């Protein structure tokens, strides 16, 4: 369990003290920007751009000389193999912060995203150094990996003239690793899956209808007494108050009575813009569903559509409509 109460309050106060501080280390590139490291990088990355590796092509390019790939920026200041040794400089405030998280049970760490901006191309001989600041620490978040905090750092890169040549932000999640569940064979509990659509809540009054959908049928409830059709289903006939009912299957043919094109907000599991229509089925009842495979600008009231029942994500079948042929 994640810490709570006053322990959490005190911990978060300790965290606040780290926000905005320089991590205390100035990283100076061990080597000036040089053709050998650029060539190794380009070979490893599969980047064949002549301006990086071929002096002749580079001379003819807009650069007029060899330059380094911009995305290589951080490579110039990384510590090399010693970074993996686990030993760290005692002055490193970032490591200190991570140890503080570790001590409260947030031992997991995962890099989540980075943004970079490059001010200019680096040339052979440029000498690069970098400073890193802890920019922010999020409030406690419940994530798919577990409860934790996001730490944002910003590294600014400068050249031998103390001019900024680019920056990089880096975000990591320090989280409490969820205890392995007893039934570790249940892979679905640990395998992240893509988001799915919201599923219907099922109860006495609607589960039967969704059962029909599973069998690829679009059902319409019918009063057993007066035979009036009704949708959405409900337990009593509004016309004659009879409680008995059965159902018929719709042909799925209908016309669009009204529709919308949803653009905001974008909910995970759905594809936008999302067309949703109220369709008047030929049986006379209306049904709300998506209209697929059509430019939203072409949808109009009165358009003939045909329903089919399809998987709309990995898990759920739903009646959807397309323009009738």
């Amino acid at each position, binding site marked *: 369990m994640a810490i709570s109460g006053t322990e959490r309050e005190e911990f978060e106060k300790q965290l606040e003290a780290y926000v905005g501080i320089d991590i205390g280390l100035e990283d100076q590139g061990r080597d000036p920007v040089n053709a050998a490291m650029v060539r190794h990088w380009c070979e490893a990355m599969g980047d064949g751009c002549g301006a990086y590796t071929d002096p002749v092509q580079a001379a003819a390019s807009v650069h007029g000389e060899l330059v380094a790939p911009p995305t290589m920026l951080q490579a110039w200041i990384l510590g090399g193999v010693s970074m993996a040794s686990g030993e760290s400089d005692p002055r490193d405030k970032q490591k200190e912060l991570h140890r503080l998280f570790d001590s409260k049970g947030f031992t997991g760490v995962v890099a989540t995203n980075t943004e970079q901006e490059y001010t200019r191309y680096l040339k052979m001989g440029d000498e690069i150094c970098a400073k890193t600041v802890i920019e922010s620490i999020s409030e406690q978040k419940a994530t798919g990996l577990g409860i934790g905090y996001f730490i944002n750092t910003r590294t600014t890169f400068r050249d031998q003239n103390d001019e900024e040549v680019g920056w990089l932000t880096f975000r990591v999640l320090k989280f409490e690793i969820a205890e392995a569940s007893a039934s570790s064979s249940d892979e679905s509990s640990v395998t992240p899956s893509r988001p799915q659509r919201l*599923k219907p*809540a*099922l*109860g006495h009054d609607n589960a039967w209808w969704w059962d029909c959908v599973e069998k690829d049928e679009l059902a319409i409830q019918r009063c057993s007494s007066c035979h009036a059709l009704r949708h*959405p289903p409900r337990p009593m006939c509004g016309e004659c108050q009879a409680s008995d009912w059965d159902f018929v299957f719709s042909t799925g043919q209908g016309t669009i*009575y009204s*529709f919308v094109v949803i653009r905001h907000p974008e909910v995970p599991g759905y594809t936008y813009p999302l067309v949703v229509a*109220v369709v008047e089925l030929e049986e006379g009842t*209306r049904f*709300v569903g998506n209209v697929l495979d059509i430019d939203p600008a072409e949808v109009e009231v009165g358009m003939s559509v045909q329903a089919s029942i399809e998987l709309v994500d990995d898990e759920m079948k739903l009646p959807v409509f397309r323009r009738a042929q």
Partner: protein
Amino acid sequence: MPTTLKDEAAIVGIGETEYSKNSGRSELALAAEACRAAIADAGLTPADIDGMTTFTMDNTDEIEVARAVGVGDLTFFSRTPHGGGAAIGVMHQAVMAVATGSAKAVVVYRALNGRSGARYSEGVSGGPTTSDLIHWSWYMPSGLMTPASWVAMVTQRYMHETGCTSEDLAEVCIAQREHAIKNPRAFFHGKPLTLEEHQAARHIVEPLRLYDCCQETDGGAACVVVSPEMARDLPNPPALIRAVAQGAGAHQESMTSFYRPTMTDLPEVDLSARQCWEISGLTADDIDAAVIYDAFSSIVLWQLESYGFCKKGEAADFIRDGALRLGGRLPTNTHGGQLSEAYVHGMNGVNEGVRLIRGTSTSQPAKNEHVLVTAGVGVPTSGMILGQA
């Protein structure tokens, strides 16, 4: 015992918090501040209050607010369902309580962290399996789960049937923004809106664009309802409640009444309107200004029709020449409305109705004998007529 609710109660105090995007405090704090301000404005003390009412969607219990504000014994407390449809339903509750003697002084309140807390724009999702959740389950799988999407569906059909255009909707937004410009409480205070800006703004759910949708606001609003007799001894000019009524219509769903023979018929609004006129003995011609519930621009048009300011389907023509603006036939949402002042579920509109009667609106029409105040559309709803005592 009265046989109608005509002139049985008056609003004598109004109060509200600031309206913001991040209140930095609890909804209870907002409710308590709004109630305290309303009670003070009424010239009363918390000990005078013996009734409290709010929305079912309010997260703060009456007794929590009562404890916070220092209200003692309560002989009446109640809740009204259906989101913004309750905006005048709560007034109906208060008037009934006062008219029947169930309470002498009722505080009506609504407070929400609508932006920094739970945001309605994020839509409906899980929860216990109630009939309400089964209802939403007909729409969630297809992605139709926000108020904008539900109202857009009816708006599309309305535009198809009447020829109303997005430019017509813009006139509602622009007229209200003209009012908000002068209202320091309004989020859009001092910020005009042009037709070009309205049309250039992104669609939220077609056919509704950004400015056709109300804001999300942190804030609270409250008012105090007492008998007309008690009102006479209090400092502010009372806003007499000439009529108040609720209405739910045939084939009513909450926001998704898509299955009516004619989707654009709004029998619940017609029903609230009919009762308001019957109880008050007034007609639309007697109304000098209005606070018309505006979660979305299009619903203002429909209510103008239901309340008889114009014929069905002709609201766009009615407003085209500035009827909603100051100096027009029906200055409407003179605070800027929920589009441009704040979204406090219509309770800020109740307070603006009182200001119109008092003559203290920042966009005050010259004539202010009778003011219409309405509630949410697409849900069971409510309306009231305020008048000068």
